[in-house]
């Protein structure tokens, strides 16, 4: 259905059901006027409190005293005012408990809460509004609310500061104890590990390096001496053998030479069969055999190992020199071995000392760290404790947070809540809207047809015609009277509404 169709249908239907529409208009107006007359009157009293935290002392104590967080002041105020203590006092003060039994206190408290509005105006002004049907009580209760709120807030602030100071004080004591303990432990560690001091570790490392270097040098010398020893031994044995063999063979060869010369000389004079020559030849042969025997002996000596050199060898100067050197070398080896052993022992000592130092260092670092942290926290806490002490003193002297009644309790000029005029005007509006709404609902839900074009759409058959009511003269006359009457009824209703409103305004009703 198009809006124009709905509007037209509503107008048509309003005319059709004009008596019903006017009837509902009258009933609705009567109902709203009655409701307006019976509606309890409500008076609202309000007061404003200036919550001042920027006192003269505060800038002086900037950074030392901590201001209470002012965020969402109205929420805090609501929690304070609607607290059990203040509400109980207000109930008693307002005289509710006298007239009603205390069992209803809970319900009364809830009602009072509903009628109380706490809001913030600007940053620091708190506004308390209380609505009551008794204007005097509205004033008194609002005043009491403001008074109790200020008292409670100051007390709460002082309590808060005191609690903060106590807490920080306790924390300070704890950290002081910790610091003392750490100091004692440090002292004990230092006395038990004297060599544990700053830089000890580097010294140990240097020493260890030096020892390692010296051990390596000594080992190297030892290895060299040993090689020399081996070499000397080999030389000594070789010299003995060769000296002995070469000296005897040499003697034999010299002798053979001499005999050969002699033989040559004899041959010049004698035949080979000459006894001298034969003798000489025999001698040469013996000597040759002797050489061979020496050679075999030498070979045998080589295979069977050294043997005690004989006197000739021993008397050999080279041999003697070698033996001297060998003796010296052996002394060197012994000395080096002893030195290395000593150096090894020292190295062991240094390593164990290094290990001891490491564990001591770790413990020292831990204790030092603890000590530094505890000292920092302790110093910070000391500072905070002093701040808290100042805050507490300020609160106890009412210097930190001040409340000032900005606007004394006053009763609002007009009655709040729905006023009688609202009922009167609302009645007229509802008197029009309700019948229209009902007619609209009837148009929507009543299956009986009220719009001709809807028939054509529903049955796909054109509307031949829409016939309006044919008014006879008598009907017209009756309608005229009816319309006049209905208009009078509507006007009378509006006039009655206006008259009652006026009487209410001049407080006749």
């Amino acid at each position, binding site marked *: 259905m198009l809006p124009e169709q709905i509007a037209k249908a509503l107008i048509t239907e309003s*005319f059709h059901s004009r008596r019903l529409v006017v009837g509902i208009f009258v009933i609705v107006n009567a109902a709203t006027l009655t409701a307006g007359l019976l509606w309890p009157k409500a008076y609202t009293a309000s007061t404003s409190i200036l919550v001042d935290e920027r006192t003269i002392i505060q800038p002086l104590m900037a950074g030392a005293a901590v201001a209470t967080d002012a965020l969402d002041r109205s929420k805090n105020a609501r929690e304070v005012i609607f607290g059990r203590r203040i509400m109980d006092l207000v109930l008693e003060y307002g005289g509710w408990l006298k007239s009603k039994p205390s069992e209803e206190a809970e319900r009364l408290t809830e009602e009072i809460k509903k009628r109380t509005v706490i809001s913030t105006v600007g940053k620091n002004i708190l506004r308390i509004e209380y609505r009551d049907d008794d204007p005097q009580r509205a004033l008194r209760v609002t005043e009491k609310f403001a008074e109790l709120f200020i008292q409670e807030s100051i007390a709460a602030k002082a309590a808060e500061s005191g609690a903060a100071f106590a807490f920080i004080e306790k924390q300070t004591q704890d950290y002081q104890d910790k610091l003392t303990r750490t100091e004692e432990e440090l002292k004990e560690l230092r006395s038990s590990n004297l060599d544990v001091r700053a830089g000890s570790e580097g010294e140990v490392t240097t020493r260890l390096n030096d020892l390692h270097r010296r051990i390596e040098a000594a080992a190297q010398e030892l290895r060299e001496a040993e090689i020399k020893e081996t070499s000397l031994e080999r030389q000594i044995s070789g010299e003995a053998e060769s000296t002995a063999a070469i000296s005897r063979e040499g003697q034999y060869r010299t002798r053979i030479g001499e005999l050969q010369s002699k033989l040559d000389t004899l041959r010049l004079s004698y035949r080979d069969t000459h006894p001298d020559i034969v003798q000489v030849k025999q001698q040469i042969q013996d000597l040759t055999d002797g050489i061979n025997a020496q050679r075999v002996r030498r070979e045998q000596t080589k295979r069977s190992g050294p043997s005690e050199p004989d006197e000739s060898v021993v008397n050999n100067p080279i041999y003697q020199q070698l033996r001297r050197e060998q003796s010296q070398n052996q002394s060197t080896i012994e000395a080096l071995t002893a030195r290395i052993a000593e150096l090894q022992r020292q190295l062991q000592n240094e390593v164990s000392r290094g290990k001891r130092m490491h564990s001591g260092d770790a413990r020292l670092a831990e204790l030092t760290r603890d000590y530094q942290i505890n000292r920092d926290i302790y110093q910070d806490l000391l500072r905070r404790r002093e701040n808290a002490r100042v805050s507490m003193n300020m609160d106890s002297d009412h210097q930190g947070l001040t409340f000032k009644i900005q606007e004394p309790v006053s009763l609002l000029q007009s009655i709040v809540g729905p006023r009688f005029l609202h009922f009167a005007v609302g009645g007229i509006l509802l008197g029009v809207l309700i019948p229209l709404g009902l007619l609209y609902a009837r148009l929507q839900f009543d299956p009986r*047809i009220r719009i001709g074009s*809807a*028939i054509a759409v529903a*049955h796909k058959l054109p509307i*031949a*015609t*829409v016939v309006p009511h044919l008014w006879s*003269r008598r009907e017209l006359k009756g309608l005229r009277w009816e319309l006049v009457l209905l208009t009078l009824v509507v006007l009378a209703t509006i006039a009655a509404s206006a008259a009652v409103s006026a009487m209410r305004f001049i407080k006749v009703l």
Partner: protein
Amino acid sequence: MSKIEKALNKAREERGNLQLVPVAGARPVPGTALVTNRVAHPETIPRMAKNEVRLLSVGDLAQRGVIQSQQGEDPAVQVFRDLRTKIVQQSQGQNAVILVTSVSQGCGSSFIAQNLGAAFAFDMGKTALLIDCNLKTPSVHKLLANASAPGLTEYFENPDLDIKEIIHPVGIARYRVITAGKRREIIEEYFTSEKMKHLMDTLRRRYQERFIIMDGPPMSKIADIRILSDLADWVLVVARYARSTNTQIANCLDAISEKKQIGIVFNEEPRFPRIR
């Protein structure tokens, strides 16, 4: 106001004084009828003049709820004129039998039938005959001074009764009625009888300018409606504001041949009248 509307209004005003002269031997063609001369007397069909009763006054007509040509500006009168024009156009110049029935009791089909007849009678070239076929709750007799004048039931029950004896003038020029007659409970047989068929044929054929309107019973008498719609050329279904439902209309339309459905008349729409 457009030129066409002005012309229509002018023609409507003049129609009361103009005569549509039927051409002998030929059927008059609506809309193309020749306008010949002006006449002084409203009764221009001579055969009707002799048995016309005294014409009803404006007050009498208003009392009977019948429209008058003098109320040209009345929306209701204009509506009936338009409806008449629509039917004439649909009939293409022929006279027609129109059954007016309502979707339920009390929708005002009799009112529509009576005034549709009156609208036809406005036209000096046409006559209207209203037959009250609503034998259980007849209403046409109220138009007559003699309410007990013989009607349909007498015609069916009395073989000697001639048709012209049951046609009565009502005091409106060119407007005749046949009342229901005495009340009868069982009426279906009357409408299905040969006599009824004969009656309708006679009435229709006798005068070419005569438009016959049957005021039928409401749709609750569905059998009657079926029978009567067979006798009619067109059927007008009357629904009433704030009374008829779509279901009722649908049931009613189901009973009638689609070819004969000329439309739905939405009756009694509340409109603020001109109060002088």
